[in-house]
């Protein structure tokens, strides 16, 4: 009554990796895959397929469902039966994906095929046959399942592949701290914090903000020797709310004085996530303005959009404005300002407008018409604009200092900000 197994599908919907479905018939995963592919083909947008698909009549007694997420070209399926919490399955899928990323870097059907033996070992270690996740901490896993390192490749070329293992995995869980290995050594000790924030907002046609929120993540890349105990303090931590932390963070310390005290895992991890809630002002401002008029006529319509940056110093990069032109839209033709490009995807019926860089207080325009087979076209009532602002954070969160105890060296520290936005602008 839990996670029955995991299947990874390639872009065409064929399984490349699947865990052993020991307690069920061989048809069981196939039924799920078929149900999923069926649902995907029926949905008007692929993203519209319900992420939790109820799959009846699978031959086992009790209900079963297929939880799926898409990452890159791959689709990960968590098959579950019984009245389990689908959130449990999604959390596991998410964890498994991040493990794969950590092991192989970029995720693609190709990398998985190259390293299938590692993938299978990982499956075996992370998901117990009874359907409950077992070892998912990356540092502990690396003791058990060797990542495909250059060394092992070199050794296997030299024909001594088996020798690489006995030293490293002598004692899984020998470390007193589950998320950190013992005896980590680096020549140069460094730790990097990437503060990535995302603005999500809905704006009405007059530019009034209906809802906006900023969510931030502190990505950390830790390359420190030994077992350092860190204390990270921010100079302006007060507006951070709804925080969640990596298990290494001492929660009590945070609730006491908003300082992060932790023994970091080795390598990349997300230290904390937070919501930025500015005091006083209700909303974080949207860094651009959009003036749009869309007119629908019989079998088509026209639109006129103007975009202006509201920033004074920073540049909005990779601005991408989308408009769904409605059922039956067949083509569009536009005139755009210099340095911008547009295209219309007839399959998804979405008009894209890309601006590489919106420099401070510059403005751009998009004018055009579209045609549709529908007599009364119903384009979406909102533009979706996505953008990036490098070296910027909405919360202007500042790291005050990083103290290290337990080790003698002085590490190199790096802090970087990075912001993205996803704004729905209604017209």
């Amino acid at each position, binding site marked *: 009554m839990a996670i029955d197994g995991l299947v990874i599908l390639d872009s065409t919907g064929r399984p490349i990796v699947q865990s052993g479905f*020991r307690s069920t018939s061989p048809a069981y995963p196939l039924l799920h895959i078929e149900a999923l592919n069926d649902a995907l083909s029926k949905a008007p947008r692929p993203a519209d397929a319900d992420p939790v698909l109820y799959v009846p009549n699978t031959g086992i007694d009790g209900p079963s469902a297929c939880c799926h997420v898409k990452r890159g070209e791959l689709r990960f399926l968590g098959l579950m039966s019984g009245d389990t919490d689908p959130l449990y399955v999604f959390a596991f899928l998410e964890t498994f994906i991040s493990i794969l990323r950590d092991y192989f870097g970029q995720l693609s059907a190709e990398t998985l095929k190259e390293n299938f033996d590692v993938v299978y070992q990982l499956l075996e270690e992370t998901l117990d046959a009874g359907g409950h996740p077992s070892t998912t901490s990356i540092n502990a896993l690396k003791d058990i399942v060797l990542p495909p390192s250059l060394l092992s490749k070199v050794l296997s070329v030299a024909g001594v592949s088996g020798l690489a293992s006995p030293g*490293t995995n002598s004692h899984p869980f020998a470390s007193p701290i589950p998320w950190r290995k013992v005896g980590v050594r680096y020549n140069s000790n460094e730790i990097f914090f990437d503060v990535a924030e995302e603005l999500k907002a809905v704006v009405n046609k007059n530019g009034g903000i209906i809802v906006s929120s900023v969510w931030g993540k502190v990505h950390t890349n830790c390359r420190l020797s030994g077992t350092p105990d860190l204390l990270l303090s921010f100079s302006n931590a007060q507006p951070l709310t709804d925080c969640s932390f990596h298990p290494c963070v001492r929660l009590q310390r945070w609730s006491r004085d908003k300082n992060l005290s932790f023994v970091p895992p080795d390598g990349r991890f997300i230290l904390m996530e937070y919501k930025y809630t500015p005091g006083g002002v209700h909303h974080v401002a949207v860094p651009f303005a959009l003036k749009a008029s869309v007119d629908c006529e019989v079998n088509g319509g026209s639109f006129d959009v103007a975009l202006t940056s509201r920033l004074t110093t920073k540049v909005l990069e990779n601005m991408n404005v989308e408009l769904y032109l409605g059922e039956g839209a067949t083509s569009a033709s536009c005139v755009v300002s210099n340095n911008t490009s547009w295209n219309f995807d007839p399959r998804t019926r979405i008009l894209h407008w890309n601006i590489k860089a919106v420099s401070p207080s510059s403005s751009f325009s998009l004018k055009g018409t579209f045609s549709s087979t529908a007599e009364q076209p119903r384009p*979406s*009532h909102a533009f979706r604009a996505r953008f990036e602002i490098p070296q910027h954070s909405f919360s202007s969160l500042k790291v005050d200092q990083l103290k290290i105890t337990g080790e003698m060296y002085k590490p190199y520290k790096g802090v970087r900000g990075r912001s993205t936005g996803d704004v729905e602008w209604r017209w």
Partner: protein
Amino acid sequence: MSGLNLESFAENASRLGTRLQETISEHTRDLSIARASSAGYLDTPEEKVRLIRKQLDSNSDREKLDAMKRLIALISKGRNVSEYFAQVVKNVASHNLEIRKLVYIYLLRYAEQEPDLALLSINTFQKDLSDPNPLIRAMALRVLSGIRVPMIGSIVVLAIKKCAADISPYVKKAAAQAIPKCYSLDSSHQPELITIISTLLRDRSPLPIGSVAVAFEAVCPTRLDLFHQHYRRLCRTLIDMDDWGQVDLLNLLVRYARTMLPRPVITEDADGQSEEVDPDLKLLLSSAEPLFQSNNPAVVLAVARAFYYLGPPSEMKKIVSPLLRLLHISPEIERVTLSYILVVARSSPSLFTPHYTSFLVRTDDIRQVKKDKMQLLRLLISAENHQALLREFIYYADDSDDDLVADAIQAIGYCARLVPESTQQCLTALMSFIQSKHDPVVANAVLVLKSLVQLSLHHHQTLTIASTSGAYSPMAIISRLAYRIEEIRHPKARACVLWLVEWAPDVLRKAAGFFTKETPYVKLQTVTLAAKLLVLCPSDRTLGLLNRYVLSLARYDLNFDVRDRARMLGSLLSGVTSVLHSDEDGHEDQGGVVLRREQVKMVLFEGKQDVSLDTGIPVDDRHALLGSLSAVVGRDLTYDSYLPDWLEEGTESSLRDSEYDAPQVPIHAQPLPSAIPRSIASSSKNTPVILTPTGPSPSGSFVRQNGKSDWTDLDKFYAETESTEEEEGTEEEAVESDEEEADSNEDGDSEEEEEGSAEEPDTDSVDEGKGESEDVLHHAR
């Protein structure tokens, strides 16, 4: 040590690597055998497949490894390679760890299909259980428990027992994971397995506890009494466990609390509410609360579940912002979380009312998400926020997604009924929708207007609509709708208008003109309208003719419902026309109908005022539990997990006293509770049928209730215990000598003592290895 050296070696090597690899890749490009990448294995040609057998038998480790990788590749392509089982099994004792791991993976897949061959290698597995490497020990146990041959059940039990006493927590965890498999293989091992579970429960390492909880749920979900002694310690360890263990243990503790702890008492006095919460329950909630900040959504939900089902009302608001936080993690998690928020919001919408902006629909939301958000917004309508919500609804009515449009327009109607001040605004919006060019908008608006009219008629113009405006009185709405009948295309909406209209010969004239082209739904209403008009005005000649025309068309209609209706009305009317007095015509409004005693009129006109308030809340998921599939897919699943209701009194809190936190209370003082465990154990030994559920993982509470009814008869209960005491004592002894814990227990038949005192040797031996390290780990949380 050696690991350390190798680490640094590895690092140096990887530094060298970049340069090395360039040269090596140069050299190996044409050496196909020495390909570093494994991609080659996936496209194994057939002749290579034939080679596998030979490779497996060869002496070279490299050959074997190569063959094993090929096999795993074939498995991942979905090919059945069980034919190589015999060759693979031989390699199980290989000294090369890499090969061995792959062999184990292979065996785990096929041990079930080839039990006889797997049995051949059992000796190796048993030997591996004493391997110095914990990884090998754990893997051996995993394979051993994966061989599904009932015959070896007792060997597996012994192996589990051995591993449960291992020093490595990793192996202990593997032991806990093996328990449910062993149980499903042969349920007659239940007593031994329960003993192992209770041993494992005493373990101080947080690692295996999650798996122990899982094993408990599978093997003996009714034996919650095993937890008495450990409850408080488990609550405190919660924070140090891994994510998955936290989820499993929390769900178990919630069930424990519901069964064993007293319900929080809420008393109302002069200065508001005061709550009385059992300290043990408080302990659970307070130790779970920090986990709201976990980065694992499943943990956050498990904590929310604990608060929702156990917490007193004042604590309930704590679940709001963690749940809202989950909405931002990913679209999939948003989808699941929304359905849980719906479950909570149905019982207490006020919790989420201030946060309604979190549920505003975005155009790129998944379809199901839009649906759930609309339901939520509907639930959250209040006097304060109805203006903003109404604006949103009106905006959604223009969306390109028809389902959203329908939901939004219905929500507007709902809002009109719920908040009287908004009625005027809602009606304006709805009437403007009727002018829309888009079919679904018009259709839904008409349907909603219909139910509003019905409702206002129901209140006899005294309430809401009529009182707010003259322009939108029911009659005005009806006449506006009738006026636009030609433009309303949606069949259901057309039928709806026809049904509403009572005195509009012109509408009938129009409808009769289109009669042949209509759907049966509209035809039925047209016939009915004709009949109604004739009843109101039997003497009118034009109406009579129209009636005859419509009825005769209907009589020869293709749809038998329409024919049927026409026949029925025809015969009804034949009596009416002669009876009805002509002085009644001209009365347009419903209120003026004085001829209530006239049965025909009753038949034709009554239904309109009888309206049930539709709340927009599906009734079918009332049973849905927070954190269950049924809440997410909106189905009432037969295998619903079930959360027991609170026990009336709760059990003695002294039961949970243990030497860890308090001076021990002499357990002999309470004969009944201390004997409960024994009663279950004995009954399960004598008559395993009672406690051995039929399914592999029984629904615990169901069995529990059976057990409880047995205990109500005290005499019977004691009689049973006494009769089994003898054999039980000896069995216990046997078990204990196996466990090498005999020294902890001097007295064979006082098992109560075993629970408490047996912990001492355990804590000593286990903590020697871990004690120091756990201090380092110790969280200041």
